[in-house]
């Protein structure tokens, strides 16, 4: 399982966000360059259609591949009250020829993306990862060198933390309280619930840039 929230920020405020994150997390950012292939089962394969994500980390000296399955999210009145999405995920590292395998098994490429940006990994009530990235599409198949932004001037921010059925309420609380610190710059919500950019972003960014993030939050 994982807890996840997403939001967007204008690229001009990303530097301020980075300063804020650096101050909050106390760790250095890591560069992010991820090639993500979304695969869907052929129409007649499987009792229900299924979707897999094949993720290649291009930041590593030798690119590493992971296959990821995103399952259903927890349901019920309690889940709707949460400000964070809690969903099932399963991941496995795979050798670099995995795409050939999934094609052979009857999966088709639905779309592919290149995420470029940075990430922070830190412990704050939960093992939290924040990624800030521009999402790019490829003009030619797998041509990651010729990718162009899907939403120029806007970047995607994602906050995730691994959880289990036993501890997800604590993880949700940890993620929610962390998100509050970012509120002046961006609003984070469950994936699919778009809330746009926040009006206070410019002022908050200007303040962060002027004092280098030394303000105690």
């Amino acid at each position, binding site marked *: 399982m994982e807890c996840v929230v997403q939001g967007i920020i204008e690229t001009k405020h990303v530097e301020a966000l980075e300063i804020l994150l650096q101050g909050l997390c106390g760790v250095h950012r890591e560069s992010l360059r991820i090639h993500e292939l979304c695969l869907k*089962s*052929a129409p*007649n*394969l*499987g*009792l*229900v259609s*299924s*979707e*897999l994500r094949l993720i290649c980390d291009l930041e590593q000296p030798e690119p590493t591949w992971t*296959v*990821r*399955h995103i*399952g259903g999210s927890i349901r019920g009145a309690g889940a709707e009250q949460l400000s964070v999405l809690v969903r*099932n995920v*399963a*991941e*496995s*590292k*795979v*050798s670099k*020829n*995995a795409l*050939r*395998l999934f094609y*052979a*098994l*009857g*999966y088709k490429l639905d779309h592919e993306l290149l995420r470029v940006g940075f990430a922070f990994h830190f412990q704050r009530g939960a093992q939290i990862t924040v990624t800030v990235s521009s999402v790019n599409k490829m003009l030619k198949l797998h041509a990651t060198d010729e990718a162009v932004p899907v939403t120029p001037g806007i970047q995607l921010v994602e906050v995730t933390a691994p959880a289990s059925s036993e501890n997800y309420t604590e993880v949700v609380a940890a993620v929610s309280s962390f998100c509050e610190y970012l509120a002046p710059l961006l609003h984070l919500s469950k994936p699919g619930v778009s809330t746009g950019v926040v009006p206070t972003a410019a002022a908050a960014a200007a303040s962060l840039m002027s004092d280098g993030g030394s303000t105690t939050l």
Partner: protein
Amino acid sequence: MPIKWILHWQPNPGTTVNTQILSEVSQCAESINGVKEGRWKTTLSFYKAMVREQATANDFPRDFVGISLAEQPSKYFLVIRGQRLVVEAESSIQIIMEKSQSYKTRVALSFEGNQYQLGDFQLRVGKVVPMNSENMRGIVMEMEYLPISSWEKSHQIMGEFFDLWQEALSKRSLPGHFVHNEPNFAEYGLSDEYTVQHTAVQYANIMAQMIATSQSAQATRN
């Protein structure tokens, strides 16, 4: 890593495998001074596509297997023999396959038995049984040579050891013999340097041969 050959028992026409043969083979390993060193186990699952219309079942591979090896319990290997494809994954890929509901296990087999040390060689002799059953379907043997990891370079010494083994076993006049068939590793994109992926390919290969043997035996009987 050390290279190994994986061999399967081919019964003489009209005969089948049984526990008596397995016990004779194990005794033979001890008779050539093999020191028993505990148990070993490999599991292999055949997968089949879950299709909404049965007519389309042939659009998907029928020789898709998943292999788990005792020496690498955190790993899982997926092989499609017809396409000469081997993929190394973590064992959690089984959860992904289960959740995506596109393939399910048709039959799962385990290969298990004893391990013997003979100097630089390791022999593992075991039975092939369907999971949750004691009904023996075959006999396999792993022959490992610890000092060498090059398939090519080990070929001569492995061949010589196999001849010695066959000779020792022939004294017992068993109704069959071990067969060594080399897969073409280069077709799978594997190099001469032995890896655990080579082992997975060998298992998929002997499984296919055991099925072919039993099918041809059945055809003869019919």
